[in-house]
C-alpha cells in the first residue's frame, strides 16, 4: 500500500515490469515508467477511439479512467482489466485483428 495515497498495489502488471522491480519506484526509473505509461495511453486512446471510448484520465499514473460518450466511467488498474471492461462498455469484443481498426491505426501512423 502506498503510504501517501493509501492505494493498494497488489501486483505490477507484466507490461510495466522493468529489469529491476525496485528500479521503477526510484528517480529516473519512475520517469521512464511514466513516459512508457503515457505512450501506452496514447496508443490505447487511438484504439479505444475506434469503438467510441477513451482513457479519460490516468490517476496517479497507476489507474486508467476509462469512459464512453454517455459519461459512463470505470477505474482500472492495468491493461489486463482495461480490455474486458472496454469490451463490456462498447458491447463488442475489441479485436486487434480487426481490419478496420488496423486501417485506422495505419492512418494515424501516417499523419
Amino acid at each position, binding site marked *: 500500500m502506498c503510504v501517501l495515497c493509501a492505494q493498494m498495489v497488489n501486483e505490477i502488471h507484466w507490461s510495466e515490469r522493468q*529489469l529491476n522491480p525496485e528500479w521503477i519506484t526510484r528517480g529516473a526509473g519512475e520517469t521512464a515508467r511514466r513516459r512508457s*505509461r503515457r505512450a501506452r495511453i496514447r496508443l490505447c486512446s487511438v484504439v479505444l477511439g475506434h469503438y467510441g471510448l477513451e482513457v479519460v484520465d490516468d490517476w496517479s499514473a497507476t489507474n486508467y479512467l476509462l469512459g464512453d460518450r454517455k459519461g459512463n466511467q470505470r477505474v482500472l488498474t492495468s*491493461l489486463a482489466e482495461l480490455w474486458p471492461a472496454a469490451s463490456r462498455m462498447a458491447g463488442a469484443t475489441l479485436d*486487434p485483428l480487426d481490419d478496420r481498426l488496423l486501417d485506422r*491505426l495505419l492512418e494515424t501512423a501516417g499523419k
Partner: protein
Amino acid sequence: MGARGRRLVTVLSGFLGSGKTTLLREYLRRYPGDDIVVIINEWGTVGLDHHLIRAVKEQPILLRGGCVCCVRLDDLVRTLREVLDLEQSGKLPAVRQVVIETSGLADPVPVLFTLTTDPILKHHFTATSVVVTLDAVNAVAQIAQQPEIHKQIIAADCVVITKSDLVSDEDVSGLRVSVRQFNPTARILVSCLGDACDALELTVEGENVQPLAIDQLPPIPHQEVQTATLGFSDTLDWPAFSVWLSMLLEARGPDILRIKGMLDIGEAGPLVLNTAQHIVHPPEHLSIWPQGSRKPYLVFITRGTDPARIARSLEAFQRAGGRGGLRVRCVDHDCGERA
C-alpha cells in the same frame, strides 16, 4: 529460490504411461535431498505413481480425487500453501524446487494459471518450465488420437522422448518432426530409462527461451494448429507491443495457444516473452543476447487464426506507436516467405 525470492516450480506432464514417473524417480535418485518437494496426482483409484515415488523415500504430497489441473485446482492451491506454511514454520527445510507431476490426461496450462493467479501463491512460487514426456513407442498413434497430447506438447518448454531403446533412430527423428509441428520452440531430449532426467533440473526464469534455429522449423505444420515465426526489421516499441499483446490475448486468448520468443526493444539484451494461452509469464529482461547473437523472433502457435493477420496487426500497432518504418514478416512457411 528464483531471482525474486520465489520457489521455482517444474511442471511434469505427459500422457498415461509415457514415463513421467520413471523420469522423476531417476531425477530424485540423482539429486537426493529434502529441498525438493514433489506433488503428484493419481488418476483413478489406484495410486500407482504414488507408490512408485514413495519407493525412493521422497515425501510426495498426494492430491486425491481427480485431475490436478481440471478438477482439483483448489487442492493444488491448498497443498502449495501447506508447503509454504511448513517451510516458514521451520518444519520443512528451505524449498529449492517443487515438481508437480500432473495426471496423464491433464492440460498443464491450468497449473500455470493457478500459480500465476492465486493471490498468495503468485508471490511465493513461479513456474520456470513445463517438461512433457512422450512415449516413443506409442506417440504417433497417441498424437493422432488424443487431443490431450497436443495441449501438452504445445505447453512444453522441453519434450522428453522416452523409451527410445524400443524404437529405431528413424522413428525418433520422425517424432522430433511431429513435436516441432506443434511446438517449434520446445527443447527435445531423448531418454532411455529416465537418463534424460536432467530435463527436470531447475532453469533460471527466462532461460527456457533460446535463440531460434530456423532450420529446425517444421516443413509442414500440423493441420490442427498454425505456427508462425515472426521477424522484425527494427527494434520494437515496448509500450505499443504490450498494448497489442494484452489486447490480443483478451480477444483471442483461447486460440493463441503459445507465444514464445526474444524481442529487441532497444536494450542491451533481449526481452524474453513466454505465454501459454492467456497466461503471460512475467517478461524477463536479459542483460546480454545468448550466444552473442542479436536475432529477435517471436513464435506463434495458434488455432484457427491466420499468422499473416497477426503479423499485419503487430506491424500496424508498432507503426501507430511510433515505429513508422517497422516491418513484421513471417520467416517460415505459413506466411509464404522467408526473411
